[in-house]
């Protein structure tokens, strides 16, 4: 009995939060003049209603999972990397450019493009980490502000030097990639592509890294109490830069898989308007930065979004209903956070060091 309780206990928080999120969603539906039952059933259909919808949810979840993993590795080490959007954008742009201009066999170009995405996102993120360790510039704020710079820069690149001049000239986008280097689809005619496999591998690798490896242990200790970690001989500087590189690299990889697997070109604002980056960060927050939980949360949030599209198509309720539910979820999850590992140190009168 006790064991079952222990297993179920971590689920109580998320279930309550999901319930409250759906409740808030219901209120929003009523305000928008829709029917709750109809809206939620459309949402379910839009996300899981058929194999086609299910695979598009999976396809949407792919970059969110990857970004979530990037957030997990940073958060667990105690670094608030909120720069996933910029890192993803630069990753996507680099992958597109390498895909367009690197000569060589298709499989080679594809892998090189993915790597270019990782490197671009990773370096952009590691730069913020470097600023923090070297110049003590607040990481949370630099990563945030770098988002704007990265998005504007990528926008410029596809609006001027690398603009696609073949088709409709109005769109700021790069030229289309050669179909040989596209990531293969997992099922014929369905949206989900090999990026999902990469994402699943990333989840497993990160899980093993955090729970089993020495370096993962050191990262977690650094996140829990940096002074303890440094005292114990953990090198904060190098761990921070590599962690930030990995975190941004995963976001860059998300951008690269999205370009190579779904969009086949870099389109200005495509990532930002789909809100991949912030959803990925939210997934990590929802799951208490646990890799497996984050993957599940990413899938769930993707379902909310694809479900929201179904809602918009078939009812009066706008698709942003998904955004409302998400936001309420995350707010109530912060309460759960309080009870677990983000907990602030309480007064020091329990520790017995004063008598």
């Amino acid at each position, binding site marked *: 009995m006790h064991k079952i309780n222990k297993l179920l206990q971590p689920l109580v928080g998320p279930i309550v939060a999901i319930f409250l999120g759906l409740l808030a969603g219901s209120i929003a539906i009523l305000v928008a003049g829709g029917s709750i039952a109809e809206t939620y059933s459309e949402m379910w259909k839009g996300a899981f209603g058929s194999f086609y919808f299910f695979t598009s949810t999976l396809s949407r979840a792919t970059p969110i999972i990857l970004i979530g993993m990037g957030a997990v590795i940073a958060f667990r080490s105690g670094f608030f990397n909120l720069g996933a959007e910029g890192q993803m954008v630069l990753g996507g742009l680099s992958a597109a450019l390498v895909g367009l201009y690197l000569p060589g066999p298709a499989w080679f170009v594809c892998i090189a493009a993915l790597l270019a995405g990782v490197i671009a996102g990773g370096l952009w993120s590691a730069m913020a980490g470097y600023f923090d360790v070297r110049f003590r510039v607040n990481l949370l704020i630099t990563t945030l502000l770098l988002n704007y710079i990265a998005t504007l820069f990528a926008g410029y690149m596809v609006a001027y030097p690398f603009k696609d001049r073949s088709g409709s000239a109005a769109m700021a986008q790069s030229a289309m990639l050669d179909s040989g280097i596209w990531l293969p689809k997992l099922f014929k005619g369905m949206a989900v592509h090999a990026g999902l496999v990469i994402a699943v591998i990333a989840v497993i690798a990160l899980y093993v890294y955090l729970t089993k490896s*020495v370096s993962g242990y050191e990262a977690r200790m650094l996140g829990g109490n940096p002074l*303890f970690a*440094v*005292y114990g001989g953990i090198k904060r500087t190098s761990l921070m830069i590599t962690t930030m590189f990995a975190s941004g690299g995963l976001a860059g990889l998300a951008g690269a898989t999205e370009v190579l697997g779904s969009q086949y070109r870099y389109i200005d604002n495509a990532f930002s308007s789909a809100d991949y980056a912030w959803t990925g960060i939210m997934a990590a927050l929802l799951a208490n930065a646990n890799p497996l939980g984050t993957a599940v949360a990413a899938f769930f949030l993707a379902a909310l979004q694809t479900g929201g599209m179904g809602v918009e198509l078939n009812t009066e309720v706008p698709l942003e209903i998904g955004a409302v539910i998400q936001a309420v979820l995350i707010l109530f999850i912060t309460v759960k956070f309080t009870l677990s590992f983000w907990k602030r140190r309480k007064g020091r009168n329990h*520790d*017995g060091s004063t*008598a």
Partner: protein
Amino acid sequence: MLLEMERITKSYGDVKANRGIDYNLKAGEVHAIVGENGAGKTTLMRILYGMEQPSSGMIKLKGKEVFFADPKEAIRHGIGMVHQHFMLFPNFSVAENIVIGKEPGKVRFDRKTAAAQVEALSNAYGIKVDPWAKAGDCPLGVQQRVEILKVLHQGAEIIILDEPTGVLTPLEVRELLDAIKALTLKGKSFILISHKLNEVMSAADRITVLRDGEVTGTLEASQTNVEQLSKLMVGRSLAPAIKRPSSPKRAVLELNNVSLFGSGSKPLLDSISMNVRAGEIVGIAGISGNGQSELIQAIAGLLAPDQGSISLLGANVTGRSARELRDAGLAHIPEDRYIWGANKSATVAETGMMGHQRRLQRFGLMRGKEIKTLVSDWIQQYSIKAGSLDNQTQNLSGGNLQKLIVARELAQNTPFLIAAEPTRGVDIGAMETIHEQLLRKRDGGGAILLVSSELSEVLKLSDRILVMYEGKIAGELQVSDATEEKLSLLMAGGKRNAQDQ
């Protein structure tokens, strides 16, 4: 009777911090409370000061029952408390610190009047302070005067002093005791909480001894002695530690002119030269805040010195990282187990394996079984009450966590060990275990640098004693020549006097 506390009981869950404590105080009296760490002294005072509410029992002031929901009400009833860790605002002026809570003026804060009030107060009670000085810049003795003036300004009749002498120089202690005397003549009453029996004997009229949350005796100071008190405190006579004479060999750690400038006007460390040899314990004595923390951090690789060199086992390690120092042969019991020594949210095993993780790996993966065996062995050997290895570190009591940290660092089996405040805030049993282990390491040829603010600990364990004062080594004594008096003088900066004696 001015104050009566009757049958006070306080429980936190299953733990009873106070059980049926009776305590009373007469006007103009100093009534001390003594007891070991965890005996319940602080809890009792927090109850009196309204910071905690008793589970049962009652408090009577001048015969009338009172109930304090928060400190504000206790203050209103004329109870003031000077906390062990001063409750000052370092960026505010002395006057601001004293008048806070009862500031002159309606909306606008009249700082001039405040300074005048403080001036008047300080003259009335003969406690000298400069109202315009910045509190954070004042020496600790002055800061304590500020605290006392603050409670007097609040109109306190009963003043609680919680471990008031811990951070004071001997001269400041004497001044404090004189001030207490003078104030009792003006009708103020004092509750003095301390574990230093000598001071209690000289300052108090009556003494109440607590052990495990219970009163084990209330005695007239004139009719008791230190031995009787310590027996009541501990519940048994203490066996003196047996220490064999040391036979130090080659120097393991050497510091040459190490300085650390910091941002203030005075350097934090001022040309420190010293060494620690194999097979000896070198004690660093000093009032806390005289550079000991910085010295530890500089040696342990947590702060790079601005000048000078440090060598470990003959190799120059100046400015090296903590990792490199540990690899070179250093282990370190940190001065604060929560800030440096543990990750509260990690498991016992995870806190325990810190520093050992790179030894216990294969292809970058942790060897879980061996780690578990290792930590379990320590738990047995040091009889640590840890629950399971997956228990969260924050659930361990202070003494048990300290034992875990000591075990972890001794298991490194390094030639050199820093032991900073190794027994701060632990009970007598844990203290005996830790002392025994440190001496065993020394006898096995280890070099130990012991830093402690408890003179008795330094005297008990060290072979050689260095005294730090304002970032300098103020003097060095062999333990055979060292007495509390000589050390106290050096700790107060009175270098010459000590050497003349």
